[in-house]
C-alpha cells in the first residue's frame, strides 16, 4: 500500500470510517426528528380531522419536527454539493480521524455522496408533502431516512447501493447500455 493516507489533497479515496461516522450522527438526528414529528402537528387530530389541514403554511413550517428535518436535509444537500466541506466530514477529519489508526484502505467517495443524495431526496419529499398539508409525511420520511442511516452506521449496509441498480434498470439514473 502506498503511503498517501494523510496528504489530503493528493489522495485517491476517502477513509471509509468517515461516512459511517457521518451516518451515526445523521441517524441520531433523524431519530430525534422522527420523535418531534410524531409528537407535533403532523400527526395531531384537530376538530373533526387532521390538525394540519387547518394550519397555515407558516404554522406548518414552524413545527420543531419540520425545522430539524429541514436542517438535516440542508446538511444532506451540503454533503452532495461539497462533500469535503460538509460539517460532519470536517468534524471527522479534524477531531476523530487524528485519534484513529491510519486507514488500511481507502474508499471511492462517489457511493457515499450518492447515498447523501438519496437521503436528501427522501427528506425533501417529506418536507414538501408536510408543507402541502399531508398528515404523517414528516415522521414517515424521517423514519425511512433513519432506517437507511442506522443500517449504514451500525451494520455497514448501504441501501443506496442496492437502490442504484434498481433505479438504473428502470432508467432513472445512469447512462444507456454501451453495446
Amino acid at each position: 500500500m502506498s503511503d498517501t493516507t494523510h496528504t489530503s489533497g493528493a489522495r485517491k479515496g476517502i477513509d471509509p470510517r468517515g461516512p459511517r461516522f457521518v451516518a451515526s450522527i445523521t441517524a441520531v438526528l433523524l431519530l430525534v426528528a422522527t420523535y418531534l414529528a410524531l409528537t407535533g402537528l403532523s400527526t395531531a387530530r384537530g376538530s373533526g380531522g387532521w390538525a394540519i389541514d387547518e394550519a397555515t403554511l407558516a404554522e406548518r413550517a414552524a413545527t420543531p419536527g419540520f425545522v430539524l428535518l429541514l436542517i438535516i436535509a440542508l446538511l444532506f444537500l451540503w454533503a452532495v454539493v461539497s462533500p469535503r466541506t460538509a460539517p460532519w466530514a470536517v468534524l471527522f477529519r479534524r477531531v476523530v480521524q487524528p485519534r484513529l489508526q491510519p486507514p488500511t484502505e481507502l474508499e471511492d467517495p462517489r457511493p457515499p455522496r450518492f447515498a447523501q443524495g438519496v437521503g436528501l431526496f427522501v427528506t425533501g419529499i417529506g418536507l414538501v408533502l408536510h408543507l402541502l398539508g399531508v398528515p404523517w409525511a414528516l415522521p414517515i420520511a424521517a423514519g425511512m431516512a433513519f432506517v437507511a442511516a442506522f443500517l449504514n452506521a451500525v451494520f455497514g449496509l448501504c441501501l443506496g447501493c442496492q437502490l442504484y441498480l434498481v433505479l438504473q434498470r428502470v432508467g432513472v439514473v445512469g447512462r444507456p447500455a454501451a453495446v
Partner: protein
Amino acid sequence: MSLTDATLVLAALLAATIGLGGWLRWQQNRPRRVDPDEVVEPQRLGADALGERATLLQFSTEMCARCPGVHRTLGAIAAEREGVLHLDIDLTHRPDIAKHFHVLQTPTTLILDRDGVVQTRFGGTPSRSAVELELTRVAAEGAHV
C-alpha cells in the same frame, strides 16, 4: 400523538430496523444454490477465459460502497488458490448484463464451476469464510465428475 405513543412507535421503529439489519446481514452470508442451467460465456462479459477450476464472478457498480471491499476479499481468495479466477464486472454501463443475471443489488457474487456453470449466488457482502466454503464445495464437485 402523546409522548408515550410516540416513544412506543420509536421503539418499534428501532427494533424493526435492528431486525432488518440482522436479517440482511444473515442473508448476505447465505449461499443460494442456483439451478445449474446457466452457462456463462466469458466473452460476453469481456473476459478472455474462466478459471480452470472455478470462477468468482463479481458484479459491481460505480456507486457501490461495499464493492471494493468484496473485490479485495475475492481477489485474495483467488490469488491463494490455483485455477480460481476472480472477475469483477462493472454493471454501471451494462444494464443488459444486470438484466440477464437478474442482478438487483451490488455486490452480487456468482461462483461458477470449471465449465462455467453458475453454482452459487451471494447477494451483498459475504464473509470470506462463507465464500471459501462454497468455493471448496463447487471445486470438489467439479473434480468428481
